[in-house]
C-alpha cells in the first residue's frame, strides 16, 4: 500500500460540477456583443483549377459584413510541419487549385446564420475541372493526375518512412516458416460531439483573441500568428471546455483562420462553427491503409523476423499523416520482441479529405494487422495464441538500439491476468459454434519526444502559486479535452504539496496566462506535463519549508514534510504549523515574498519516439448470429499497465471509451466516399456505437508498474487503449465461426459471405 493521499484513488473530475449543471462553456457557447456568424464556401469538385472567384454579389448582400478569399490571405502554406517545410502543402484558402470536395475557397461573416448562408449562394467560382484520383495505388501509377506539384512529391507520394534493425534478410533465410498477409484498413471519423468552432475578436490594438476548440492552444497561437502575419504575442488563444478531439483538433483548421481574418476585416467578433456535415466531410479522418505483412518464425513459436509495407491514403493534404506513417511502422513491432524488422511506408495524395492523426496515431492499424496475423501463426503452429504472445512479448529493459528503451513493461502480467480472469484456457477453441474469445495486445508511447514546430524538443511547463486566499493555483499549458488532464494535474499538485483536492484550482489552455506546452497529442500530458507540475510543486514546497524553518526555529536541522495541510518535522510529526499560516507569514511578512513554483520537462536522450511506453492485453468475447453475421459483444476484459495509476476513475473511463470507439471502428463505422464525395456525413448514416451495443460486462484490470521517467511512476492511459480493439474482436470472431476478415470494417455482410464461402469449400 503506497502512502499516497489522493493518487490512485477514484477522484471526481475537477471540471465535473460545471459540466453536469450545463454551466460549462464550450467554444460553441461563447457569445460576444455584436458577434457575427461566419460560414465557409467550399469546392464542389474533387480536383479543379480555380479560374476566377467572384464575391461581389455576396459582399453586396445586406447584413454581410466581410467576405474573404485567397486574395485576402498571405498565400503562404502553413501547418504543424514548420521544421519540415517540404511537407507544408495547405493554404488558409485555396487560390490555385482545389483538391477535394470541401476544399475551402472563401468565407463570409454576416449578422446571422441565415444571411451568411444566403451569401454563400451568391459566390460564383469558375473552375477548370481536372481529372481526379481517389485510390492511392492508382495515384502512384504513371500518368496519374498530379495533385501537388512539390519538388519532393513523386507519383503523388508526399512522404516515405523507413525503419530497419537487425539483419532482416538473413533472419528470414533461417526461419522455419514465413507467413505473408495483406490487409485493408478503412477511414473513420473522429466524430467529436463538439464540432470544430472558433470565436475570434480583434481589438483596436490589433491583438486577436480567439476562443477555439483545440488540443493545442500553443500551436494555434504560432500558426495563426504566422498565417495572419502577426507577432505571436498579438494572438491570444483561449481553449474553453472541449467537447472531444481524439487527434482531430491538433492542427490549425480553417474555422480558426477564417474567424480571425474575418474579425480583422469586419472589426467585430466572429463565430465560425462547423456543421456536422462539414465535420464529417471536410476536417480529417483516420488514415486508410493498405498493409502488407511478412513474418518469419520458428517451430517453437519464436518470432524472428518481420517486414511491413504500407500505402497510406493521405487525402488531399498531408495533415499529420506522415507521423501516422512513421508510428504505424514503429508500433507494428510492438509489444513483441522482434530482433529483425524492416518497414517501408508510403504516404500518397488522393482527391479526398485529408487523413491525419486519430487516437492511436497509426497504432490501431498496426495492432489489428499484427494481432490478426499472430493468431494465424499460432494456428499454423497449433499453439494457443495467448501462449504465443507470452513467449514473444517484451520485458522490462527491452531496447531497440537507436529507437527506444523500454524501462517499465507489464505486458506479460497483463496477458496472464486477462487470461485468468476470463477463463481463457477453458474457453478458447472450446466454446460452441458461434461463440468465441480473442486477444489483442498493445504498447503505446507516453508522449512523443519529438516536436514539429520550430524546435526539435517536446516540452511542458507548469507554474504553481499559493495565495493567502487559501488556494493552490496550478497554471499549465496542457489541454483538458475531456480526457481528464486537469484532474490529473490537480492530483499531482495536491499529492506533492500535501493539500486536499478541493484546495487546488487548475487553469489551463490560455496562451496569455499559462506556460507553453505542446498540448494534448501522443498521450503526453500525464507524463510530460505531470512531471512539470510535480517539479513546480516541489519547488514551491521548498519555498514553504524555508519559511516554516524560520517560523519554527528547530535547534538542529530537521527534514520537513508537507501533508494534510500541515508542514511538520519528519521525525517529530507533532511539531508543525498549518500550511496556510506559512503562506500568510510569507506573503504578508515583512519581505512580502511571493510563493510561486516553477516546473518544466523535456525528454532528452530518450530515443526517437517516447521516454516511456504503456502496455496492455485485451480479451473480448463475442457471439455471432450465424444467419445474419451480426456480432454481439458479450464481454471485454482489459489489463492495462499505465505505471502508477493517478485516477482510477479516469483510467477505467479511458479503457471503456477507447474500446467502444474501437468496437465501432471494427464493426460499423466507415466514412464512405464515392468519387471523393462523402456519402454519410451525418449521425443518421455514420454509425457510432450506441448504449445497447456495448458489452454488458466490462472488466478493467489495472496492472501497476513503476515508470522511472513518469511522475510518481505514471504512464499514459489514453490512446494506446484504442490499439488492441480491432485485433482482439477479429480474433474472437475467428474463434467463434472460423472466418478471418482482413478488410475492415468487419460488417455482418462480410462475415456472412465468408461463412457461406467456407461452407461451400467444406462441401467441395
Amino acid at each position, binding site marked *: 500500500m503506497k502512502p499516497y493521499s489522493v493518487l490512485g484513488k477514484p477522484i471526481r473530475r475537477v471540471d465535473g460540477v460545471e459540466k453536469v449543471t450545463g454551466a460549462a462553456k464550450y467554444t460553441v457557447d461563447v457569445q460576444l456583443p455584436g458577434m457575427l456568424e461566419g460560414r465557409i464556401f467550399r469546392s464542389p469538385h474533387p480536383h479543379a483549377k480555380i479560374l476566377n472567384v467572384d464575391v461581389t454579389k455576396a459582399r453586396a448582400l445586406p447584413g454581410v459584413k466581410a467576405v474573404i478569399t485567397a486574395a485576402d490571405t498571405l498565400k503562404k502554406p502553413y501547418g504543424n510541419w514548420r521544421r519540415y517545410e517540404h511537407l507544408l502543402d495547405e493554404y488558409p484558402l485555396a487560390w490555385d487549385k482545389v483538391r477535394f470536395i470541401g476544399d475551402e475557397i472563401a468565407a463570409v461573416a454576416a449578422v446571422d446564420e*441565415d444571411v451568411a448562408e444566403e451569401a454563400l449562394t451568391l459566390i460564383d467560382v469558375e473552375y477548370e475541372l481536372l481529372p481526379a484520383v481517389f485510390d492511392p495505388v492508382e495515384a502512384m501509377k504513371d500518368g496519374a493526375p498530379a495533385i501537388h506539384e512539390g519538388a519532393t512529391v513523386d507519383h503523388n507520394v508526399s512522404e516515405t518512412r523507413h525503419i530497419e534493425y537487425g539483419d532482416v534478410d538473413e533472419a528470414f533465410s533461417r526461419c522455419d516458416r514465413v507467413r505473408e498477409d495483406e490487409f485493408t484498413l478503412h477511414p473513420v471519423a473522429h466524430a467529436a460531439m463538439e464540432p470544430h468552432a472558433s470565436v475570434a475578436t480583434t481589438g483596436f490594438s490589433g491583438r486577436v483573441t480567439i476562443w477555439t476548440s483545440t488540443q493545442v492552444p500553443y500551436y494555434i497561437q504560432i500558426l495563426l500568428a504566422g498565417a495572419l502575419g502577426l507577432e505571436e504575442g498579438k494572438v491570444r488563444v483561449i481553449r474553453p471546455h472541449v467537447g472531444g478531439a481524439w487527434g482531430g483538433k491538433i492542427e490549425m483548421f480553417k474555422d480558426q483562420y477564417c474567424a480571425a481574418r474575418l474579425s480583422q476585416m469586419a472589426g467585430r467578433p466572429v463565430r465560425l462553427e462547423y456543421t456536422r456535415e462539414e465535420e464529417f466531410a471536410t476536417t480529417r479522418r483516420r488514415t486508410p491503409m493498405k498493409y502488407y505483412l511478412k513474418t518469419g518464425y520458428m517451430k517453437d513459436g519464436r518470432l524472428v523476423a518481420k517486414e511491413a509495407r504500407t500505402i497510406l491514403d493521405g487525402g488531399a493534404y498531408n495533415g499529420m499523416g506522415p507521423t501516422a506513417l512513421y508510428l504505424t511502422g514503429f508500433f507494428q513491432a510492438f509489444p513483441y520482441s522482434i530482433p529483425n524488422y524492416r518497414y517501408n511506408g508510403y504516404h500518397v495524395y488522393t482527391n479526398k479529405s485529408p487523413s491525419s492523426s486519430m487516437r492511436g496515431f497509426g497504432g490501431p492499424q498496426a495492432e489489428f494487422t499484427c494481432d490478426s496475423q499472430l493468431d494465424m501463426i499460432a494456428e499454423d503452429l497449433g499453439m494457443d495464441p495467448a501462449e504465443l504472445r507470452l513467449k514473444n512479448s517484451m520485458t522490462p529493459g527491452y531496447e531497440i538500439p537507436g529507437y527506444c528503451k523500454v524501462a517499465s513493461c507489464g505486458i506479460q502480467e497483463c496477458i496472464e491476468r486477462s487470461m485468468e480472469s476470463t477463463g481463457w484456457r477453458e474457453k478458447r477453441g472450446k466454446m460452441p459454434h458461434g461463440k468465441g474469445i480473442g486477444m489483442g495486445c498493445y504498447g503505446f508511447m507516453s508522449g512523443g519526444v519529438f516536436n514539429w514546430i520550430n524546435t526539435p524538443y517536446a516540452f511542458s511547463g507548469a507554474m504553481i502559486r499559493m495565495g493567502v486566499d487559501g488556494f493552490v493555483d496550478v497554471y499549465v499549458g496542457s489541454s483538458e479535452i475531456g480526457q481528464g488532464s486537469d484532474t490529473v494535474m490537480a492530483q499531482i499538485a495536491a499529492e506533492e504539496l500535501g493539500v486536499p483536492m478541493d484546495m487546488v484550482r487548475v487553469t489551463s489552455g490560455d496562451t496569455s496566462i499559462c506556460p507553453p506546452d505542446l498540448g494534448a497529442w501522443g498521450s503526453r500530458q500525464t507524463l510530460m506535463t505531470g512531471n512539470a507540475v510535480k517539479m513546480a510543486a516541489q519547488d514551491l514546497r521548498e519555498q514553504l519549508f524555508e519559511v516554516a524553518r524560520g517560523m519554527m526555529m528547530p535547534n538542529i536541522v530537521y527534514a520537513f514534510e508537507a501533508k494534510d495541510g500541515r508542514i511538520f518535522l519528519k521525525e517529530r510529526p507533532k511539531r508543525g504549523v498549518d500550511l496556510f499560516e506559512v503562506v500568510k507569514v510569507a506573503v504578508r511578512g515583512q519581505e512580502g515574498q511571493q510563493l510561486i513554483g516553477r516546473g518544466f520537462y523535456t525528454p532528452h536522450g530518450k530515443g526517437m519516439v517516447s521516454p516511456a511506453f504503456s502496455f496492455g492485453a485485451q480479451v473480448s468475447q463475442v457471439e455471432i448470429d450465424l444467419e*445474419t453475421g451480426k456480432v454481439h459483444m458479450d464481454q471485454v476484459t482489459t489489463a492495462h499497465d499505465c505505471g502508477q495509476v493517478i485516477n482510477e476513475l479516469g483510467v477505467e473511463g479511458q479503457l471503456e471509451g477507447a474500446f467502444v470507439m474501437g468496437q465501432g471502428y471494427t464493426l460499423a463505422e466507415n466514412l464512405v466516399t464515392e468519387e471523393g464525395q462523402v*456519402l*454519410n456525413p451525418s449521425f443518421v*448514416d455514420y454509425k*457510432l456505437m*450506441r448504449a445497447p*451495443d456495448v458489452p454488458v460486462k466490462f472488466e478493467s484490470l489495472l496492472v501497476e508498474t513503476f515508470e522511472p521517467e513518469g511522475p510518481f511512476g505514471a504512464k499514459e492511459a489514453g490512446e494506446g487503449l484504442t490499439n488492441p480493439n480491432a485485433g482482439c474482436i477479429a480474433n474472437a470472431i475467428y474463434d467463434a465461426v472460423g472466418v478471418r476478415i482482413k478488410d475492415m470494417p468487419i*460488417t*455482418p455482410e462480410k462475415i456472412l459471405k465468408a461463412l457461406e464461402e467456407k461452407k461451400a469449400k467444406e462441401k467441395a
Partner: protein
Amino acid sequence: MMDFDVTSVKTLDEALKALSEYGDDAKVIAGGQSLLNILKQGLMAPEILVDIKGVAELDGLQIGASIRIGANTSHRTLEDASALDETWPVLREMEHDLASVQIRNWGTMGGNLCIADPTGDPAPVLMAYDAEAEIAGPEGKRRLPLEAFFVDYYETVLEPEELLTAVEAPAPPPRSGVAHEKFRNVEGDAPIVVAGVRLTLTEDHRRVEDVRIALGGVAPVPIRALEAEKVLRGQEPSDEALAEAAATAPGETAPIPDITASEAYKKKLVRVLVHRAAGRALERAKGT
C-alpha cells in the same frame, strides 16, 4: 433553409381549409421528426407549413373490435398503451424499439406513414394487421388498404389538399399470432430490413388458414410477400413450410443497394427475418 411561415390549426376542418388554400406551396407538419431534416437540408422549400400537431380530434386511440390510431398519436403513446396487450401486442413491441425515446415522444404515427420511408418500422406491422388508411380531403373521407397508401419511394397517394387522418386495423381472427422482426447493425438505429407476419391456424391447428407477410426496406415501398403467403397458406404449420415460404420471399423483393448493405445481403435478410417472424407468429397462434 428554414424560411417558411407556419400556421397552427386546431381542427381537421381548419387543416383541410388551409391545405386547399395553399395547395402545392404548403406542407403538413405533425411531429416533423423526418420533415425538419429534409427542410434543413434545403431539399424542399414550402411557403408555409400547416402544423396539425394541435388537432385533438386526430390524436389518440379508439380500441374496440378494431383499433383506430389517430394520425397525431405519438409513438410513445402507442408504446405505453397497455390496452393493446390483449389484441395488438406487437404494435407495442414494435413501438418500444422504434428509433429513440426522444423521437417516439414527439413523432407521430401519421407523420411516419406519410414520409413513406420504406425502412420505417410501423408499416409492415400494420400491414400484417391488415390495416387501412383513412384519408380526408375536400370531397370528404376515403379509405384504402395501407399497402395501397404507398406509391413510390417517399411518396404516397395523398393529394396536396388531402390529409391522413387515421389508420385502422381489425382484431386478428381467432387462432392468429403476429410477430415483428427487424435487422440493424447498430441498436437504436434505423432498420435495414423489417418484416411483419400475421399467421392464422385452422380450428384444428393442423393447417395454416391464412397468413400475411409484410416487408420494409426491400423495395421503394413497404410490400406484401404474396407468393410466400401462397406457399404457406393451407400448409401444415411445420418449420419446413415456414422455411419454404421464407425462401420464396426474397424473389418478391427489389432491394435498393446502399451504403448499409448490398441488394444480395438484403435479400438474405428477408429470408431470415420472414422465417423468424413466421416462427414466432406460429408459436403465438398455437398459444391461442
